[in-house]
């Protein structure tokens, strides 16, 4: 990828071609499974071998999207578009002209990526009804590879949040709330009788994308990651969440939160799949001046067989009092796993970590204040009825269009940017950001190949518990392990490791050197193979729950069984 990856991991490259029907296990999925339960690469192989057609696959996903409507993962389901694309894909397969691994693969896109002809709302009143005339570069790249766009996924308004609870279309429900694993554990608990309201959040802000992948309604989804918005819901929903290096993937068409930290994220069911998607998305885009100039070639992820030459850093500052015991012990277990397989595992220090949250707050709100200035009701999106003056129209439009979280951030940001405050807040925060980024540089310069950290403080929490705190407090907690990475522009990936005592997924995060995304994914893949994270058991949901899940009322009934 980019020069500067001083430590290239010695690997034995294993041929991963799917010439036989023995699908390489990706996270321990064994035995007969429905097509939908497969990974992207597995189903891609099935498509190539004609075991299923793109249209059949598309219809299965569409039907599952309908069955899981109660999850609220999708804002818009682009059924017609997807079926049309499937038809095209089918023609290509019949002619033997498949476009590659993504041809005919159902994907979902977070609703803050512009999609030509398809409403793009950012889960905000402000953009309700806004239909972009162009595709985001990442969306275009997926479509150019033959992927089927199933729909646009739910999020916190303008991606500001870490629960996917704060958008105008309502909260996203975590598919694990309805899993066999979780429900069996719930039954043992005395307070299990208020389950109907006890569904869990997905994390966020890319919760819709994480839920969509987790519930098998698509094989990969795009999220965005500014402070952890891809990795956080990935961890809570038991999927892989990749935040590529800043500048590796184009932001053109991604409706910005913080331009200097935003990165399109990738959510998949296994690391290999994330690598496939990254291979397609990565590279220079003439429409985004912050993308790398160096050409990026698609790659096949190597199978690490030997980690003895690896050095894994454990940042001591990430051991915070709020960290749940379970996550803590899994983190230690993971470190021990690397050590027992011969890797060098050392404690490292990222001394400025604790300033990250407050620093992010200043930088994020400042850029938000600037980025949101274009939503004035004149050209597109919401416009109020008031027309006494342009200024009054602006004020009312923005009052009606943005929720409290967005408005709050705009106000704070404008405060920080005032002439008299700029030096004391914005400039200082930029300096702190540099210190935080330098912490990582120092650690990687000392010979560390990747950092291993928790992704979140705990497993996913029930919605009712989550909303007790305000958005800002929640975001500060939710982003605690993920956000410094965005400050430094580094690649990071959350990989599901194991289920908690409640039967809920817990993910760990690997952080790599800038532009060494491939190396990072190779390490993540090795780890994924070792831990054999269990598949979510949504059998009822997938096989025979169509009647049960037709409406929410019945859903609650089913949960009480």
């Amino acid at each position, binding site marked *: 990828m980019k020069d500067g990856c001083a430590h290239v991991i010695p690997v034995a490259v294993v041929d991963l071609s799917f010439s036989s029907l023995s699908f390489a296990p990706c996270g321990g999925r064994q035995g007969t499974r429905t097509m939908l339960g497969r990974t992207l690469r597995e189903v891609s192989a099935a498509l190539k071998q004609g075991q299923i057609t793109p249209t059949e696959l598309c219809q299965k996903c569409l039907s599952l999207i309908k069955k899981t409507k109660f999850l609220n993962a999708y804002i818009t389901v682009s059924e017609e578009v997807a079926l049309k694309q499937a038809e095209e894909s089918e023609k290509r397969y019949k002619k033997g002209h498949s476009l590659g691994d993504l041809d005919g693969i159902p994907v979902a896109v977070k609703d803050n990526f512009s999609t030509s002809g398809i409403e793009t709302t950012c889960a905000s009143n402000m953009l309700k009804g806004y239909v972009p005339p162009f595709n985001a570069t990442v969306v275009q790249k997926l479509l150019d590879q033959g992927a089927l766009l199933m729909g646009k996924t739910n999020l916190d308004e303008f991606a500001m949040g870490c629960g996917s609870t704060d958008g105008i279309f309502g909260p996203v429900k975590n598919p694990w709330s309805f899993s066999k694993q979780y429900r069996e554990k719930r039954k043992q608990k005395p307070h299990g009788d208020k389950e109907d309201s006890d569904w869990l959040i997905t994390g966020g802000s890319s919760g819709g994308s994480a839920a969509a992948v987790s519930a098998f309604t698509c094989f990969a989804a795009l999220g965005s990651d500014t402070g952890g918005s891809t990795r956080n819901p990935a961890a809570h929903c038991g999927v892989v969440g990749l935040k590529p290096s800043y500048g590796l993937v184009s932001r053109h068409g991604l409706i910005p939160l913080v331009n200097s930290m935003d990165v399109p994220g990738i959510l998949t069911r296994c690391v290999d799949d994330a690598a496939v998607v990254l291979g397609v998305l990565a590279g220079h885009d003439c429409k985004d001046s912050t993308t790398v100039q160096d050409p990026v070639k698609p790659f096949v992820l190597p199978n690490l067989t030997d980690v003895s030459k690896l050095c894994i850093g454990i940042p001591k500052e990430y051991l915070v009092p709020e960290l749940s015991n379970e996550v803590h012990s899994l983190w230690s277990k993971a470190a021990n796993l690397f050590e027992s397989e011969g890797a060098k595992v050392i404690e490292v220090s990222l001394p400025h970590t604790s300033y990250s949250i407050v620093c992010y707050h200043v930088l994020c709100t400042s850029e938000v204040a600037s980025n949101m200035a274009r939503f004035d009701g004149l050209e597109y999106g919401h416009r109020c009825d008031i027309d006494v003056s342009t200024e009054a129209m602006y004020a009312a439009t923005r009052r009606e269009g943005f929720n409290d979280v967005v408005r709050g951030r705009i106000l704070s940001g404008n405060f920080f940017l005032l002439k008299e405050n*700029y030096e004391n807040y914005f400039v200082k925060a930029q300096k702190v950001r540099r210190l935080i980024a330098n912490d990582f540089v120092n650690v990687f310069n000392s010979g560390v190949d990747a950092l291993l950290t928790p992704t979140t403080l705990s497993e996913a929490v029930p919605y009712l518990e989550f909303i007790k705190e305000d958005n800002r407090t929640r975001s500060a907690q939710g982003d605690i392990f993920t956000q410094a990475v965005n400050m430094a522009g580094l690649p990071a990936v959350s990989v599901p490791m194991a289920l908690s005592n409640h039967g809920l997924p817990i993910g760990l995060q690997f952080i790599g050197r800038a532009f060494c995304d491939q190396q990072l994914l190779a390490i993540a893949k090795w780890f994924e193979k070792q831990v054999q994270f269990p598949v979510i058991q949504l059998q009822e949901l997938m096989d025979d729950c169509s009647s049960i899940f037709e409406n929410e009322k019945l859903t609650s009934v089913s949960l009480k069984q």
Partner: protein
Amino acid sequence: MAAPVLCRLWSGRRWALAYINRGSRHGAGTPTGSRSSGKREQSSVVQQPLITAEKPRKGEHEWAAVVGLEIHAQISSNSKLFSGSQVHFAAPPNSLVSFFDASLPGTLPVLNRRCVEAAVMTGLALNCRINKKSLFDRKHYFYADLPAGYQITQQRLPIAVNGSLAYSVFVGKKRSQVINKTVRIKQIQLEQDSGKSLHDDLRSQTLIDLNRAEGQLRVDANISVHHPGEPLGVRTEVKNLNSARFLAKAIDYEIQRQISELENGGEILNETRSFDYKLGCTVPMRDKEGKQDYRFIPEPNLPPLLLYDSASLPAGTDPQQVINIDRIRERLPELPSVTRDKLIQQYGMLPEHSLTLLNEVGLLEFFQNVIKETRAEPKKVTSWVLNTFLGFLKQQNLAVSESPVTPSALAELLNLLDRKTISSSAAKQVFAELWKSEGKTPAQIVSEKKLELMQDRETLEQLCHATMEQHPHVVMDMKKGNPRAINKLIGLVRKATLSRADPTVIKEILEKKLSA
């Protein structure tokens, strides 16, 4: 989009901010009809230690004025500063608007290489220091023709700084005395233009044109007065001046206004004013833009703009990806001051003539083309081009390119004059004919109108003789020693030749005959 360079000019007596910007903003704040949003052009004019000098005016020796200019000029480029959409003069409104120009969410700016090169070249021409690293900033304000809610500019670290421009002014009764002056240039910056607002006051509507390319020069003048030796006065900013004449008028008016205000015990407010060109005065603008906080923030979507010179250029770089200042310096055309010096040295031209030749678009080239084709003295050519030719152009309000007389025609005419085929008054006549009747050569006109000088000495002598006989008292006068009498005789002989004789030859013959 608009491809703007901001030059901030400084001089001892007047300091100036110049700023070359694509697109227009005219007539701001005038109470009538279409008004452009003068609102946001105020670039934070940092009153740095200004060196001031006295600006002596009759009876006000105790006041000094300080003036800074912010000049917005459009870069001549095919596409906009930050988007690929085209730039055409007078294109239909909103016909050249990309998704970025319309500020659709998710679009990003992409810097136009041509605009950067133009800015560097401008910086070199104005003796600036070119910053090898410059930055872009966002300047925020809400206005209907600013769809992003901010304008991308170079506030913190512009592309070029600390330049100077030498110029000359004419003083003295006949404006023949030349004084050389230097104005300091604070900075040149690239800046995106906003759109154009057209206010329909009748219907209370504002129409917005996001094409943003009108090819205009626009100047904001910052003006203050103070007593020499005392701190600088409070400045006012007069916005959107779009001609040199109005700029001068506005500055003169504003200086006078501030002086009388202060002398009458008033105070100067730090405010934005507009120039009412009908009344010839400045008036405060309605909006309180002087109080705006633009909340500048670094533009996160544009990495620092890095420039190289041949020494700093990293090996193996793709020339398409980098801008080499030295390459641009090589392409820099000859600058006007150098051309003027050459004209003075090569042709013995007066400095003011060299200035006039360069001030009129195309005039120098016209002059040089005439020189190439004629044997006439350069001084003669200069005189003909600057007096006769330019006079005709001015009279009819034409540009050099619109002239009906070609350089070749003038050159041929001057050759006829030089060979003494025609007299200089006949030449004037031929020129007037050339101007009227395109297509005819000077020789044709001379022959049709019978304007050739009489070359036949014998005939001329006879004419002289006849004239002397017809006017005996003039001859007498002459013999009595009246020096003006010979001129009268010469005039009479010329009249008899229908102005076709060379007066020097006539004089010679007459003198010879008288002394005989």
